[in-house]
């Protein structure tokens, strides 16, 4: 496990209300032997709370599901980008919604990448692998 430039491990905040989807991400990470610390929030509100309370140590990447109760992914992104401290957070969107509107809206909130879960069920590993490379190569805030 290669540490990031600053010698710290990159944390992962998974924001998803679906337990099985979260299990999926964790399994994929296990298979790839990625042991970085993962945190989980059940919806956008909880995620913001956790980030503001600094429960997730920097550097971190957010894996975001779009459809969640109380505050969905788009609303979370809006709040995030409006927050002075959190605005530079790196976010990858993992979602089942193929609808174009969702996609466009997410890119307008400056996300790093967009992956539909159902399309990449098999290639989920590939997606997680991509993330792994991403945080090794890219400098995280």
């Amino acid at each position, binding site marked *: 496990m290669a540490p990031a430039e600053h010698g710290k491990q990159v944390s992962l905040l998974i924001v998803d*209300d*679906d*337990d099985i*989807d979260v299990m999926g991400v964790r399994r994929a990470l296990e298979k790839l032997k990625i042991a970085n610390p993962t945190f989980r929030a059940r919806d956008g509100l909880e995620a913001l709370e956790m980030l503001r309370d600094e429960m997730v140590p920097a550097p971190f990447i957010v894996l975001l599901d779009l*459809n969640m109760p109380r505050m969905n992914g788009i609303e979370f992104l809006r709040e995030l980008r409006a927050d002075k401290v959190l605005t530079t957070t790196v976010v990858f969107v993992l979602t*089942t*919604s193929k609808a174009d509107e969702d996609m466009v809206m997410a890119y307008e909130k400056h996300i790093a990448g967009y992956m539909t879960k159902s399309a990449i*069920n098999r290639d989920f590993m590939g997606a997680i692998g991509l993330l792994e490379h991403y945080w090794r190569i890219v400098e995280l805030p």
Partner: protein
Amino acid sequence: MEVIRSTGTDFGGVSPLYQNIVEHAPSAIVLVGLAGHIELLNLQAEKLFGYERNELIGQAVEVLLPPPSRANHPKLRQIFFDTPTSRQMASARKINIVRRDGSELPVEIRLHPIFTESEPKVIAIVADASQQRRQEENFRLAIEASPSALLMVNADGTIEMANQQTSIIFGYPASELLGQPIEKLIPQRFENHRHLRNAYICDPQPRAMGGGRDLYARHRNGGEIRVEVGLNPIRATDGIKILCSVIDITERVRAKERLEIQQYELKRSNDDLSAFAYVASHDLKSPLRGISQLANWITEDLAEGNTTAINGHLCMMQKRISRMEKLLDDLLLYSRAGRSKSLMEDLDAYELVRQIFDSYLPVSSFQLYLGGKSFPMRTYIPTLEQVLRNLMSNAVKHHDRSYGTITVTVSRVADDLAEFKVIDDGPGIAAKFHQRIFQMFQTLRPRDEVEGSGMGLALVKKLVESADGKISLHSNAPTQRGCTFIFTWPIAPSLYQEG
């Protein structure tokens, strides 16, 4: 001046030519003396009256009149000879004569006075008017039978004729229409009708009235009728008349409105369906995806010979399967909601609430408070029960404590409307979620925390709105705890008193 003898067929002193002319004239000719006796009649007259001339000559002319007219006729004769002029007899009235066989015949009689040596006499030319009378009658029948109201109005706007349909549409018997101004049939707010009428008379053209505008007429009872009016100028012998045809288009207007409502409903229904399909496909895919993932993991784990997590996976699979079943059941309920109209039945609202509480809310640590002892009403029971059950079980399901109270109150806000309030002391719902929770598949807690299809409130909203009620919610979390759902519900107007 011709001298015409008053005796029989002997026309001595009269030229044979004139005799011939009178005898064979195509019209019935009768000569009547000052005292009213028949002095002469020609061939046509014999035919018309059905008598031989010797049966009539010397007789009073009254013998040819129907019995009821006889008494008054001598006086009329007198008046005629006072100022004798060549004219039509009784032109305004329809006159009949009586033939020998007693049958009556409608006639027209022209009178012409002549002056002889002895006294003035009158020549009467009698014409059979039966065909004319029949035609007039047929015309009258046609006007009467017209499915449109037909009115004849003169240049001053006075109604001179109105058929039966006019009476039916406007509610006035003919006697109350004839001689009245046409404005009697027009709502008072159309003050400028007289001006428009006068303008029309100046250059009357056959056309529809008020082209393109909505026309209203006034019924005897003051109510307004939507109509279409056609105007047709007629140049009658005594001036210009306007024949107006009026059609009551109330039903046509209503049908059009009904159609528009149907179209609106159809569009709404289609929009609903699109939204439904979009949401349904997404939210139904979710548990399927979970099941698929779990199946994959079981396969992978088995391949690696790793059996520890398999039971857990299978358990989660079952949960997802039941969730999907519930979702589909609730979807079906939702789509059916408000479709079938049941009949109104009698019930006690508070008793229903008690029943729901006892059967469906198993947690004994919750208390039920009611706003009254009983509230008899007459309404649609199955749907009301569904609404109350959903709201009450939500109150328990989303409570953050294992104990709490639910309060239900019922009141009458209108003759045909009741208002229900379901109040809980749970955590409440923040204002920003108030709109969203009534949408399909919306949950406030993740489904893995609180199992719920998210259809409950959408169903409640649909049921309430299908019954023409309204639902709203009052809650101010997190500032205040508690949540109040208020909805109106139709009830049959009655004389019941609340207990």
